[in-house]
């Protein structure tokens, strides 16, 4: 690990200034923020991340660590810990999918440290990215190639891939936010802005090293999750190689608004199978207005994977991903929801 500058701002405003100054002094700075640290510190020790400056955001919890229901939306402060959101009564009662996605994501030890903002920004677990002894990784070293394309790619993505990167987005919580049409409140040196969560992550395309639409020096401050008729009837289903803490092989974040057994509104996002949190809008469109039968669920699942592009070892993810979505839909159809 290389030496670096370190600062510990005591407010969001100060943090933005620290980073702005760092970037002004050194435009090519690799300065990074430190929140919960469970990803950033890990990658620094692996020599994957080599920041020349670290801006420690741990003092910001008081400012952006809230979890609250404002009457129409859940408001999740980006510096709240995963455990705080997962265990929060408002989250659990109003949108079970969010709590499930967080509880299933990581062990208690990690949930107690990792922040919500950091969680959605976690980096891929692609071994060719995380292990610097592999020279080819476009995400780590732009233009160096992709060792996964011809390597062991069982865990890799089948949706949203490009010839430059097939690394899977590893998270769980992001799928819930995406399905629920959350928005992201961003604080930046030039002021704040709010974007749809769907615009936060960028598919790899030709620039896999650019993973989000955050601009240099910006910090996620809050997620706003607007309530809808689908809030309570929501579920995060995660299929893993190990039946306990483990990244998803395939997962589905699904929320339904039903009228009788007819779908009024469906929200579907997929994990474990795509390079970014993946919204399955084709599946949603097929479900809307239809009776939720197994046949309808299968048609939707098929539609969700129409564009799947598997590689040598991960073809199974197409069918497993479909089965996961079918299961989630059927399970939700029979779920008792308190009114």
């Amino acid at each position, binding site marked *: *690990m290389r030496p670096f500058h*370190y600062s510990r701002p005591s407010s969001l405003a100060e943090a933005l200034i620290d980073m702005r100054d760092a970037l002004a002094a050194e435009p090519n700075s690799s300065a990074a923020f430190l929140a919960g640290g469970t990803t950033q510190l890990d990658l620094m020790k692996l020599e994957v991340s080599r920041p020349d400056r670290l801006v420690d955001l741990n003092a910001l919890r008081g400012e952006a660590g809230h979890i609250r229901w404002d009457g129409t939306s859940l408001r999740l402060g980006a510096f709240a810990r995963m455990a705080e959101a997962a265990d929060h009564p408002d989250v659990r009662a109003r949108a079970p999918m969010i709590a499930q996605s967080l509880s299933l994501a990581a062990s208690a030890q990690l949930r107690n440290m990792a922040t919500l903002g950091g969680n959605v920004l976690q980096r891929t677990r692609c071994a060719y990215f995380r292990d610097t002894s592999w020279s080819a990784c476009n995400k780590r070293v732009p233009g160096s190639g992709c060792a996964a394309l011809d390597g062991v790619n069982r865990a890799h993505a089948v949706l949203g891939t490009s010839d430059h990167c097939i690394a899977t987005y590893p998270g769980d919580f992001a799928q819930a936010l995406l399905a629920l049409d959350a928005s992201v409140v961003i604080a930046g040196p030039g002021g704040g802005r709010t974007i749809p969560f769907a615009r936060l992550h960028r598919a790899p395309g030709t620039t896999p090293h650019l993973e989000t639409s955050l601009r240099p020096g910006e910090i996620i401050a809050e997620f706003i999750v607007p309530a809808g008729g689908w809030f309570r009837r929501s579920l995060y289903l995660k299929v893993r190689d*190990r039946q306990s803490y483990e990244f998803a092989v395939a997962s589905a974040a699904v929320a339904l608004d039903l009228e009788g057994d007819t779908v009024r509104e469906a929200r579907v996002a997929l994990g474990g199978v795509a390079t970014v949190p993946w919204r399955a809008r084709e599946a949603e469109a097929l479900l809307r207005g239809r009776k939720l039968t197994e046949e309808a669920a299968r048609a939707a699942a098929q539609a969700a994977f129409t564009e799947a592009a598997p590689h040598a070892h991960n073809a199974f993810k197409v069918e497993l991903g479909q089965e996961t979505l079918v299961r989630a839909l059927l399970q939700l159809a029979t779920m008792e929801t308190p009114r």
Partner: protein
Amino acid sequence: MSLDQVTDGLAISFDLNGERLSLSAPPAERLSEFLRERAGARDVKVGCNAGDCGACTVLVDGLPVCSCTTAAAQVEGRRVETQSGLAKADPDGQALVAAFQRHQAAQCGICTPGMMVSAVALLREVAEPSEAQVQDALGGVLCRCTGYRKIIDAVRDAKGSASVAPGGVGTAMARVDGLPKVTGTEAFGDDVAPAGALTLRVIRSPHHRAAFTFGDIEAWRAANGLDLVLTAADVPGVNRFGVIPGFEDQPVMAEGEAKFRGEAVAAVVGAGERLAMLDLADFPVRWTPLPHALTPEEGLTAALLHEERAGNIMCRGLVQRGDAEAALAGAAHVVEGDFSTGFIEHGYIEPEAGFAERVGDRIEVHCCTQAPYMNRDAVAKVMGLAPEGVRIVPTAVGGGFGSKLDLTTQPFLALAAWKLGRPVRMAFTRTESISSSTKRHPSQVTMRLGVNADGTLAGADFFGTFNTGAYASWGPTVANRVPIHASGPYRFADYRARSVAVHTNCTPSGAFRGFGVPQSAVAQEQLLDMAAEALGLDKLEIRRRNALTNGDETVTGQVFDTGMGILDCLDALKPHWDRAKAEAAAFNAAAIGTKRRGIGVASGWYGCGNTSMSNPSTIRAGITADGRIVLHQGAVDIGQGSNTVISQIFATALGVPVERIERVSPDTDLTPDAGKTSASRQTFITGNAARLCGEALRAQVLRLGNVSEAAVIEITPGAIRLTDGGAERVVPLSGEGYALEATESYDPPTKPLDENGQGDPYAVFGTTAQMAELEVDTALGTVKLLKITAAHDVGKAINPLLVEGQVEGGVAQGIGLALMEEFLPGRTENLHDYLIPTIGDVPPVDTLIVETGDMHGPYGAKGLGEHCLIPTAPAILNAIADACGARVHHLPATPATVRAAILAAAT
């Protein structure tokens, strides 16, 4: 206020176990390292440095976090609690200390701090947690020894008090060495280096096979302020080591060509802080990748890894009797299949670690190891010293399972400390531990099994190909052992089993709990089920019908007069089998969704000790003039409990309370050679040496007092009081050192195998039958285990609770083998890509202890360690097939694999 400074020297103020500390450190130093190295909290254990294993869990403001993924700066102004502090001063911590001891919830002890710290946080919230609550709270802490069940029991019973008093053979007493493990004072390989010791890191090949040359090493060393760089040129003795005579083929550091990814080519030594700031990728070495072979098929035609081994075949094994081909031709049914398993990583939570120092003209190595005397002799050869010039002092061992038999840190530490004249320490990173240590051999088995119409076995033909990696390690042992065991504990008149071990450019395969037998059982026990299906016979019944009994000949022609207890194990399972069969049938009859239940059974057997080879153990003990009873116990306890078992045996033989025994721990200067901790040999072989030693000492005492065998001995300061009938005698004790002393050895009686593998390879076999109950989601391919019932004939349970601990831990490893584990060189070199079972993956385990006795074992006891996992994987696979008709041939049975098998079975 914003601080802005370069990394080193941020003052961090925090509370550690109630004490206010202010220490200077780089802000992004791992909290685990900060606590261990700067605050002296060595009770914080490091297992993975990636947030995967949870061994380093501490409480920050009351919440459990992984201290390895927490930056030191993040605890500024906060409250940190660790195991030692909680054990000392926290009521829940103290309750857990007692409960962990009572339930034997700590085996090796390396995960225990993480478990207990997490449990304290839970108990502060929930006084009487449910099993699910314990599983969630402890879910982030991995354990490779216990199978988690005793940990769950201990946490849920933290407020309880029932305990077992110490006692001799047959008593479920707490571990004699347990307290340090549960109070945070146990010292493992990375906990013993003196302050100021230099740190060593190894430079390893990133390629499966590559030629290499060095640049200007000396200039690089000087520029980076390091003390030493080692290469093969610095080895004063023989740059080769190994574990089997004639197969010492592995260099400490490669010369010119690295033969597997992770092979050492150089080592660097310097101050710890300097090394922490160094990127070893900058080391001046130039690699030229060469064509490589990763599978046996590729290995057979690849360039020779070792000149003398044609076709890259390291060795072959054979057992044959009768005429297998003719028997198969005449069988009513023949079932056959190909089965394969991958590399399996031992996954002990303690990475290889230790330190060495030069003492005069000797070198002393303190390290975690399973084989101190073998290490001593091997290090001596590397160093060009006489064996007596090397002292190996084993530290506590945080799990071994076979891989800590081989040299890892030892030669590097010895070379560096010798050369520098300063203490040198090292701990493998998790990645280097996984990439460079030995693995379970991947297996490809083709087997045909014939049955007669009456359900008896007609014959079998087995061919197993094992990927033995780049160097021999214990490959020859696997190749020899498998043909003997591939019959399972059944009668065969006509049998042929062949094995071949092939070199590849993979990490060396070596010893891992079972030496190849778990792999052969995956094939053989599944085929037995397929044969039962062909016959329409109950799967427990086909095993009962063919079970070896005393007086039968095994496939090597060996006949046992005592101890062949497989039928007793199967009979012990019978009521459970009938119950489970009915329950699964009822569930499936009522099932409307995609979930189906299944049950499966499998048997296993395992010969204790080396195969047809002398492998003695020696135990020494003495009584001092002031009445101390000292046991020189050189068998390394790697968590399985040999310290306790051997003490119980010795105390019973001598006729004194076990709590009177003081142990001298393994140390090649202080304890005689009790052999290696492997092959399920310590209870049987070292146990016998301890029994003989205790009996010899007792005989001396009785002779001095001129009393009968029935006399009661009481050893007191200055005298031994003997009570024989109504009479009392006193034998005075005097002199320096030991007033009375005995040293005894035991070597099990075996006979060599002839060219057809016929002979008496082992004095003792242990046998087992296990049953798995599970649920398969036939749409998703997921498997949920409901229960494992494990019947084990241990001859005599010296300590029944330790037996359960071994069984539960072995079952957990069998679950991993069956469902999730596979090491891929270069791809799964950490504990998130390489999956081992967590507390959520191990269902209740019901251990049925069968005690049929044995004429050779101490008090009738047999070994147990390896037996526990042999039947687990095939029992699970048989249960999957029972549930959904899908036969899994290639492990692990991940959801994708099970789904594919279900789809294949449906077409």
